[in-house]
Structure formats: structure tokens, C-alpha cells
């Protein structure tokens, strides 16, 4: 009679585990997978689910069954259970089995780790610089100065090695679609490897609390076809258009303003921290531009962008706004921003 409920519990537990596992495998837990590193990690997660769910179901089955079958019934107020003090065989069993499971999982995880951190001979090296609160990506060039961008561009199917450093506090370089992250640590260079496998646009996130602007320290990873990546690199390598106002194609005032607005919302990332009605941005980390801009000259606006610590609006602190916009934005983008901001505040 006593064996009977245990068989029932095993049956119910097996069904519940099967449903749970099926559900866990069916749900799409992860963001888009866009790198070679994703599959092994996602599979590891599935395996962890398959192992964990029966254990949880086991605990739940025993609790629920006990609460139902062994609950105190009227008249049992003064009764006690049988004085069972232990069972050595059972205790050895539930020490050994979890230990074996856990060591197996560790071995498997170790294999996955080696897989995702494999070093490739023909890696593309991207230097990632973190600063409060912006990313910049540097592509060293064999001959000539490196290409610097504040958005990440990567060719598909090429193993990439990121060399990450920080210019102030801890940050953490994370592309959720690549599943990998590592801290940017002041004083040392940390390394991360990923091989993008899917063309598209994916968020780059700072995952380590780095101060006031932590939640807006974002960028975008563009995974391009190798040909498109080469085109992008070539266009960036070309001498900067409009450098010093000469050469290249000249933009009309209207084009400049349009470029400025795009930069404000997109590439420059200004809107993440600053409110500006015209651009439709609502950031509150930095001063509200609708209020502070009116009355400022173009020169003052330019100084505020390239040297933000020169004057600090009352109620705000120094060293919050990245001081490197003169490097991360092209001079044309900078001119556009100044023209745009001067126009909208009039």
C-alpha cells in the first residue's frame, strides 16, 4: 500500500518534467543569435534546463504530496510521526548523485568554454575604448592611421578579437546577440572573441554600472557582408571630407542641419542624455537643451560639445559627458550638429 503512492508520484513527476522540459525547449529564451559563440551557449542552457527541471519537479512533488497526504487531520492534534532519524543509504545516494551530475555539467561547460574562446589565426582586431558614457571602436590599419568609429562594424564570418580598455572607470562590453561580454578595466586590456554569423544590426550594451549615464551607454553593432565591410573601411580611410572647410563636397546649410539632426539622434547619441523637443529625445542625464540652448552662439555650442568640462550647467557634474566627440564625430557631423542646434534654439 505504501509503494503505491510512490509509483503515482514518479508517474506524475515524469509527466510534469516532460511538460516542463518541452516548454523550456519550445520557448525562445535568447535574443537573436548572430555569432558562432551562440549555438554552444544556447545548447548548454537547454541541457541545464533538461537537468534542472526534473530536480525541481522532484522537490515539488514531494512537498505537494506530503502537504496533501500527511497533513494533520482533525483528531491528530496530539499525534507525532514515526521517529525516523535517518537512512545512511539514502543519504549517500543524495550526496553522490548530485555530485556526479554537477561534475559532469562542469566538464561539459569547460568544453563549451574552450569552444567559444578558441583562438583563430586570421583574427580581425578591433580595439574597443570605453569612456563615460560612450564606446569608440578603433580598427588598426597596417599602413596609416587607424580608423575610429563610434559604431561597431564587423564583417560576417570573420573571427574578431576585441581588445578592450577603459579610460576612466569599469565598463562592460556586451553584444547580447553574440552572448559574450567582458569588463573594460582601467589599467589593463581585456580580450574577447566572437565570430559574427548573421548580417544585421545588434545593440551594444554597457553591462557594468559606470555612473550616471550607465543606462544610455549604448552603441550599435553592424554586421556586414565582407564586401560591404571593406567598402565601409575604405570610405572611412579616405581623407576626411570637408576637412578644414576645404576639399570634398560642400554641404548646403539645409543639408548640414539635416545631418546634424541625424547625428543628434543617431550616431552622436546626444539624445540619450539630452532632452530636445525638435529631435523628440527625452534623456535627463544631461541638461535639457530646450532650456539651456536659447541665447548661445554657435561657438559656445561647439565648445560645449568638444570640451564639455569648460562650462558646467548648474546642477550637473563635470566628467559626465564624454570629452572625445571631436575624435568620434567627423568634422562634418560636428559642423552639422552646431548648425542644427543653433537653428532649433532660435
Amino acid at each position, binding site marked *: 500500500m*505504501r509503494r503505491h503512492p510512490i509509483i503515482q508520484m514518479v508517474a506524475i513527476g515524469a509527466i510534469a518534467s516532460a511538460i516542463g522540459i518541452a516548454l523550456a525547449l519550445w520557448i525562445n*529564451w*535568447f*535574443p537573436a543569435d548572430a555569432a558562432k559563440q551562440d549555438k*554552444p551557449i544556447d545548447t*548548454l542552457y537547454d541541457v*541545464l534546463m533538461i537537468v*534542472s527541471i526534473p530536480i*525541481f519537479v522532484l*522537490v515539488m512533488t*514531494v*512537498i505537494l504530496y*506530503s502537504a496533501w497526504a*500527511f497533513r*494533520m487531520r482533525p483528531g491528530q492534534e496530539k*499525534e*507525532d*510521526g*514515526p*521517529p*525516523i*532519524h*535517518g*537512512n545512511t543509504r539514502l*543519504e549517500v545516494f543524495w*550526496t553522490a548523485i*548530485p*555530485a556526479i551530475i*554537477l*561534475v559532469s555539467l*562542469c566538464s561539459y*561547460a*569547460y568544453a*563549451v*568554454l574552450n569552444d*567559444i574562446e578558441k583562438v583563430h589565426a586570421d583574427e580581425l582586431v578591433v580595439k574597443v575604448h570605453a569612456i563615460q558614457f560612450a564606446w569608440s571602436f578603433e580598427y588598426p590599419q597596417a599602413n596609416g592611421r587607424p580608423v575610429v568609429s563610434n559604431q561597431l562594424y564587423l564583417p560576417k564570418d570573420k573571427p574578431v578579437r576585441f581588445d578592450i580598455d577603459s579610460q576612466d*572607470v569599469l565598463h*562592460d562590453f*556586451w553584444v*547580447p546577440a553574440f*552572448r*559574450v*561580454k*567582458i*569588463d573594460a*578595466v*582601467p*589599467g*589593463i586590456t581585456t580580450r574577447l572573441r566572437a565570430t559574427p554569423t548573421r548580417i544585421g544590426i545588434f545593440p551594444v*550594451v554597457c*553591462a557594468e*554600472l559606470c*555612473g*550616471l*549615464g*550607465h*543606462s544610455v551607454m549604448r552603441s550599435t553593432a553592424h554586421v556586414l557582408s565582407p564586401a560591404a565591410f571593406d567598402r565601409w573601411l575604405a570610405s572611412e580611410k579616405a581623407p576626411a571630407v570637408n576637412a578644414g572647410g576645404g576639399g570634398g563636397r560642400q554641404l548646403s546649410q539645409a543639408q548640414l542641419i539635416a545631418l546634424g539632426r541625424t547625428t543628434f539622434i543617431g550616431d552622436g547619441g546626444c539624445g540619450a542624455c539630452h532632452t530636445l523637443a525638435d529631435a523628440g529625445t*527625452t*534623456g535627463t*542625464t544631461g541638461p535639457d537643451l530646450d532650456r539651456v540652448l536659447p541665447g548661445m552662439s554657435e561657438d559656445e555650442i561647439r565648445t560645449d560639445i568638444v570640451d564639455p568640462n569648460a562650462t558646467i550647467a548648474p546642477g550637473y557634474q563635470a566628467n559626465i559627458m564624454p570629452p572625445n566627440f571631436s575624435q568620434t564625430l567627423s568634422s562634418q557631423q560636428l559642423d552639422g550638429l552646431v548648425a542644427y542646434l543653433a537653428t532649433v534654439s532660435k
Partner: protein
Amino acid sequence: MIAKLRAPGWYRAGLFILLGIAFSYLLVGTVRSAMHYSDPWTDGDAITIVSLLGAPLFFLVGLGCFDYWFYWVSGRPTRPEDHSAHGATGWKDYFRVNTDHKVIGIQYVCTSFFFLFVGGLLAMLMRAELAQPGMQFVNSQQFNGLFSVHAALLIFLFVIPVFAGLANYVIPLMIGAPDMAFPRLNALSFWMLPVAGTMMVGSFLAPGGSFATGWTAYAPLSTEMPIGQLFFTIGVQFAGASSIATALNFLVTIITMRAPGMSFFRMPLLVWANFSTSLLVVIATPFVAASQFFVLLDRALGFQFFDAFVGAGKDGSVLMYQHVFWFYSHPAVYIMMLPGFGIISEIISVKARKPIFGYRMMAFSLLAIVVLGFTVWAHHMFVSGMQSWIRIPMMITTAIIAVPTGIKIFSWLATLWRGVLHLDTPMLFALGFLTTFTLGGISGVMLAMIPFDIHVSDTYFIVAHIHYVLFGGSLFTIFAGVYYWFPKMTGRMYDERLGKIHFWATFVFFNLTFAPMHVIGVQGMPRRVADYAQQFAGMNLAISIASFLLGISMMVFLYNMVVSWRLGPRAASNPWRALTLEWQVSSPPPIFNFDAVPTVVGGPYEYGIPGAVHGIFQSPAEAKPTPAGNVATAPTTE
């Protein structure tokens, strides 16, 4: 008035705070003048920092924590048998320095619950801000302050001290002692807590806002922050010192003050749990003190421990902070869990009316956790950029520490088996704990697996995990323990119906709040952000709504506790028919706990053995011994 200012108490404490600030001001001014600073007397930062250290010490002196020792040192007559500061006759006695462990226990529990509600309110504000993407109610500085103060309060001012408080009340009673080994040290330990708590909450008033670097206060962010950061750095020193002194007190009490016949393996598991916890505290807590002293020296005196710009001639090490910090803060997770394990062992055995299954393995697994707990710290640093090989041994130890934890879970389940389960509020919280803590344990093992951890560290998955172990784990055991010992501590019964409502509301809304956080974490939402991508909006709104309902369910608890304490029916001395010693005396117990010294004659959980007792109050000759915790000699299920 002069007499009031001379006698220990709040008037003198107030006066001494002013004296402390004045002293700090003079000290700063004198030293700065001596070193030829240009503005020796007006540097607000320096004066604040020294006052934060000095004023609390003066406050403790003013309140009277040190009076006895000062009398002794100065050769004035001390009265060792003077018990005027022992025990409470009215509510006012709870607001002065008191040496009775029962009064101190209640002081601890009430103070920490006050900070639980403050910390909970901060969480509500956070969830209000996170209900929608974009910024609505607070700015990023305030938001970073909210989650930082929330975590710091609930860790240092709630979970750790509330366990110390419950243990303070219960442990001397359980081992048959009249009080703790060092009652005056015990009082001093308690009074450092309100100091730490006031400092942390007070940081909201600091210029530049409260500390906003998370409870981890990672350098070098924390060494560059406005003055509010120092309220954490220094507050932790007081909470930590309190914790260390209490742990020493517990160790000495448990080792030296057990009643005759109370061998180590006749101790209730709560005593074992607090013994283990105290070992952890004494060994680990100095490390967090060190880490915060480093930050203090960096921030205040420019020591450059963590200023790592080698190119600029600075050779600090950023990773060193994390190693020292986590060498405390991982064991701290067990400091916040082992006493809960003890509480659950007590409740499950009494409420299932069965001896605890595998008593010795339960005790040894606690010690195993203590040892292993010191070998896993760097699993918090898998993505920190430390030497990559360290990750492998840390992964293995982290996974292995689940084995002793598993032993405990399975032993509790086996204790339930074939018992007579009294499903009242403490038991419901114990069973709820088994459920949520198992989930927290499983996500912990998942996080040990480095490749998965690399993806989810610093995301909401971590937030979910920590709340499953600290809310679903620690807080559930705290609720279980508070309901279980409420009759003993207050002499009154709580309202069972409200208790059950509180349990079910908490259990449901807890899971609705924190389970979805696993999902958004895996999907890529980082933690500690005031604003987030549009794709997480729906989930976050659901989480916020559930969290508000969770907050409301706490009001049921508060109402039940306050009203039952004042108006509840009188409690019998042993309403649960428990065997441990604290239930063999009146509720609340007499001022020195036992009118006659008890003699322990058997194990603490001999339920089901007719006529079995744990302790007797006659002479040892009359005692009928029963075997303690026999393993596998009794009938089994087979």
C-alpha cells in the same frame, strides 16, 4: 537638565554627537593648518568624512555603551551584580542600552524590520520608474541611488542583523544559558546598527546625492563619487564591526555556555547554523572592512590603491578591489542563508512532528558550506577580466557547494515524509522557502557554468537569482522564524488567518515579480539601468505591478504583528509542543531565562518517541536519558 545630560541616555547622546562634530572639526582644522593647507577650516568634504567617523563613536559613548568599561578603567567602583540595565519593564527600556539578550534580540528584529520597510519602499520607487521605458519620476543619479541604498540597507541592515537578532533571542534559551557570554558587548553591537542605517539613509541628504555605485561600490567609480559615497563606505564599517562583535559573542556563548548534557551533537540545528555563520562572519567580514577602508583612503587621502592608469605613473589595481570585496561578499551570501537553514530545520521538525532526518549530515553540511564558501568568490568575476584560468576551479567549487545544500533540501523533504504536518503560517513559509530556494539554487548552479554566466552576468537574470535566494530564501525563513517565535518573544499569539493571507500573497506576488526577471535577463536587459529598450516594456510593466502587490502584502504582515503584539491572545509557554529548551519556559521567559539550570538528556528533535524529552529541570540523577540523533537504527520506510 544637567543630571539628564550627565546620565547615560538620549540627552547625553545628543550632546555627545555635537561634541563629536566639534571634535572632528577641530581635528581637521588643526591637522590641515599644521600641514599648511590654504583653507584649513572650511573644507566641507574633510569635515564631513571625519565627522562620519567621529560623531558615531561619541554618540555611542553618550548613550552609555562604554560606561561600565570607563568606570573599570578609571578605577571607579563597578557593580558586576548590578542588573539595572538588564531586562525591560516598559517600551522605553527598548530605547536604551540594555544588556538582556531578549531585549537586544527584539531591538535587533524591530530595527531591521524598520529598514526592511525603508528598503522595500525604495524598491517600489525603483519599480515605479521602471514601469515604463524613458525617465518619469527620478533622474539617473536618484535612480542609481535608489538601487544602491535599497541593496545596502537590505543586506547590511536587514538580512544580516535580523538573523543576529532572532539568534540573540533564541540561542541562549536554546542552549540553556542565562544570557550571552558578553552582554555589554552585545548591547554595543546592537547600537552600532542604527548608526550604520541612519548613515546610509541619510546619504540621500548629502550634497551630490546618495551613494550610487550599487552595494558592491566597485572602485574606481566609488573613489570618484561625491561625498554621499562615503556614507556607505563608513556606514559599512559600523555594520561590519557590529556583525563581527556579535559573531564572537555567539561563538563564545555556544562554546562555553551550553547547559550540562548539551553536547555539540545534542544542539538544535539553529545553534549549529549560527555557530557556522559566526565562523564565517569572524573570518570574512574583516575583508569587506578592508575593501571599504581602501576606498576611504583612496577617496579621502589620495592613496591610489585603485587608480590604475599605469601610463600616468599610477600602479593601482582595479581587480584587487573585487577580489577583496568578494572574498567577504560571497561568504556573506551564506551568512545570510545559514541561520535561515537553522530556522527551517527547527520549524520543519516541530511542525512535521518528526525528528530531523540525518541530523549529523545536517550539521556537517553546514560546516562543509563554511569551508567551501571561502573557495568560490571569483565566480562573481567571470567577466571581470581577471586571469582566465581562475574561472575553472571557481566553477567547480561553485557547483560542488550545491551538494551540501542539496543534502539539506533532501533531508528536509525526508523529514516531511510520513509526518503529521501542521500547515500553519510558519510551516507554510518553510514549505514556500523549500520551493523558492530550490529555484534559486538551480539558477545558482546555472550561473556557475562559465559560458552561460558570461552571457547573463550583470543582467536581470542575476537580479532574479539574488532575489530568489535572499527574498525567496532568507526573507521567507525570517518570516517563518518571526511567526514561529512570536509567541515566545511577545507572550501573545499572532492572527493565524492574516498570517496565511500574508503567506499566499507574498508567495504568489514574489514569484510574479521575480520569475519574469530571469526571462528579460536572458533576453539581454542589463541590471542597474534607469532606462531600457522598448522590447522589455511589457515585461517590466508586469513586474512593476506584481511588485506593488508584493509591497501591499507586507502591510498585512505589519498589521498582524503590531495588532497581535498589543491585543493578541496570551500565548501558552509551549504552543507548538516543541522539545527545545526555549519552549520549556514561560512566554516571554523570566528575566534570567531559567529559574533552575536545565540538564539536557537527549536530542532536540525526538518527536514520535513516547516520553522523550530534550532537557529537564530536575537534578541530573533523576534524568532518563534518550539517545541523541541515532542514525539508521530506527525503522525506515522500507
